[in-house]
């Protein structure tokens, strides 16, 4: 009996100690990056992706992820760990994604996420850039005789994903047109597709790239078409937790490097041969001039590794979005020098 009292007292002290430690821990991020240290220690980048959106983040039968969002994760892994394959992917629903990021389950969220004020400012997140300029559109059946959003009538039923900006835009749109509609919001994209395909709803609304990608999953893709109108701005980009400025910079500049590389014609096959280029901007990109990596505690070849292992933005787009038939035309996702709006600050 005496012995058991001792045990209990020990447990009591241990728990008190635990409380004391708990309050000491979890301090604010200092100049050094805790996320970078943890990532190096773990040996992989913890990246949150979608549950399967062709072109953006989609796993094949063997479980290998690919897509332009996945390439952001790969770029960060190449820069930080030297190997683009050292990524641990966590598939997340729209609902789970931000909590997974703020709770530290993942360190980068690359999941076709729209950059909005409230998300950026209110819930402890920081958007680091835009890797795809999208806009919300509508898909309908070809035989419906609906050729434009102006053909929508009162009583139309619209399927979409819950927990997305889509749900809000849809309301703004139908309200502005004074059309009464039936909103049906599912948690997972696959169920939205199944319900729309079955005829539960007359139109399916989400980002246009998403519509194009999901159309390939329909039982008969040729029966459906995407209406020409775009009803919202959807700048999609990678997100990090607030409070680790160094990590934020690493992710931002990993993405910027890919876009800048395309701008200067540096790609995965010619990058290493451009070390002695005449152009200082190219030399900085491939690491033969300047000490840019040191600014966030990386070596000088970080950007070269991104370009060699992942490729530049144009290569990534072509491989995942254009060649898969999702959106062959780059539209706004073209470099500013070629009529698009991709414009990143200079890496210098």
């Amino acid at each position, binding site marked *: *009996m005496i012995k058991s*009292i001792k045990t*209990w*007292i020990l*447990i*009591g002290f241990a*728990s*008190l100690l*635990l*409380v004391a430690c*708990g*309050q000491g*821990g*979890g301090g*604010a991020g200092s100049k050094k990056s805790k996320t970078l240290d943890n990532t190096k220690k773990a040996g992989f980048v913890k990246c949150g992706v979608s549950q399967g959106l062709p072109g953006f983040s989609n796993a094949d039968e063997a479980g290998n992820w690919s897509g332009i969002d996945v390439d952001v994760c790969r770029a960060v892994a190449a820069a930080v760990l030297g190997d683009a394959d050292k990524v641990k992917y966590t598939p997340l629903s*729209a*609902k789970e994604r*931000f909590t997974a990021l*703020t709770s530290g389950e993942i360190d980068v969220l690359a999941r076709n996420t729209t950059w909005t004020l*409230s*998300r950026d400012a*209110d*819930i*402890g997140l920081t958007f680091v850039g835009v890797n795809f300029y999208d806009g919300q559109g509508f898909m309908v*059946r070809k*035989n*419906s*005789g*609906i050729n434009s959003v102006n053909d929508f*009538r*009162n*009583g*139309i*039923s619209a*399927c979409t994903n*819950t*927990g*997305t900006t889509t*749900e*809000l835009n849809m*309301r*703004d749109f139908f309200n502005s047109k004074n059309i009464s*509609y*039936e*909103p*049906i*919001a*599912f*948690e*997972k994209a696959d*169920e939205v597709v*199944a*319900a729309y395909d*079955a*005829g*539960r*709803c*007359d139109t399916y609304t989400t980002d246009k790239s998403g519509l194009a990608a999901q159309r390939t999953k329909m039982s008969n893709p040729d029966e459906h078409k995407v209406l020409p109108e775009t009803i919202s701005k959807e700048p999609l980009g990678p997100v990090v937790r*607030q*409070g680790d400025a160094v990590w934020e910079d690493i992710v931002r500049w990993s993405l910027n490097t890919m876009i800048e590389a395309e701008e200067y014609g540096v790609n995965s096959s010619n990058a290493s041969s451009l070390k002695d280029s005449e152009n200082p901007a190219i030399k900085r990109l491939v690491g033969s001039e300047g000490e840019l990596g040191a600014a966030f505690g990386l070596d000088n070849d970080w950007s070269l590794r991104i370009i060699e292992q992942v490729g530049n933005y144009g290569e990534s787009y072509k491989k995942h979005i254009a060649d898969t038939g999702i959106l062959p035309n780059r539209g706004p996702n073209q470099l500013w020098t070629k009529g698009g709006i991709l414009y990143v600050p200079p890496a210098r």
Partner: protein
Amino acid sequence: MNLKKLNIENKKIRNLIPQALTVLALLSVIIYFATNAQINMGNRGISFGFGFLNQEASFDITFSMIEYDGSHSYGRAFLVGLLNTILVSVIGIFFATILGVIVGISRLSDNYLIAKVAEWYVEIFRNIPLILQIFFWYFAALRALPLPENGISFNDISFLTIKGWYVPKFIWTNFNIFLLSIIAALIAIYFLNSYATKQREQFGKQIPTTIISLATLILIPLFTFLFLGVSLSFEYPVLKQLSPTVFTYAGGVSIIPELIALALALSMYTATFIAENVRAGILGVGKGQKEAAASIGLNKNQILKLVVMPQALRIIIPPTTNQYLNLTKNSSLAAAIAYPDIVLVFAGTALMQTGRAIEIISITMLTYLTLSISISIFMNWYNKKMAIKEK
């Protein structure tokens, strides 16, 4: 002497210390998590508070029992979700109970076919995960339903289609009077029943209460129609063309397929467990009870109603309470098929739009807790009422 006293004190302390330390340890853990969450939220610039409940929700909901659109607040959206959860739970409990009792009694039937069908039903439906059954009723059954233009018509006043079950809308005048007459009828029936019980106990006189009750329930409300200006008209659903091939129904009330699928899956699944409870309850009543009842001249219905069921109910109620609680909690699977319950609307959309995970999940958990405890309290009251009264 002194030593003995100390020993007694020791024993008291011995009993007290572990309990006190357990409470202390538990409190420490809670405080640890709370402070940790607070510090981490503070570091990431996340504020904590419930002010968001008054903000405009700005998203719409398919199906609501109260007036709601996106211009209402998150608090209102919470209420819509809560009412939808309660609605599907009540419908589910109602049908699960009826189906469960029928299947439970059928399993004990002398008729081989009926007993076997009931047995197969129970074995199949209780052994398939509920979420799969919900998907089955929603996606498999949904695909089998026709598009609105070919809707299955019931006498041209009601249509079953893939977009929902369109039924006529009731348009009442003086609904209040009608409601009062129903309440009056119910009170009359209550007094009739207690009078009948007294008559039976004191004089052994049998009054046919069922028929009289039914007549009361029909005649009193009918009276209000004839003399008190209550009237009811119907608004029928009418096929409406939205585009060359897109149709819907205007007017009437649409019972959305998400609700039908969810209620169907929940009641079919839970009914199997209730059926087993009912079977256990009936088998738990001694054979001698039935024989004794028969020997004093009660007929078969009276034996079931007066002797077997009152005793069986004592065995049936407690486990069935669990099933009601399960059904209510299982209704949270609604989110998978877009039925706008509290989880989809509040812990889903509202959580996403506000990002207030801790606040919203706490509110949602507290709501389910309250719902479940209310059901528990009611069923415990009913159980006590049904228990053997020691005289």
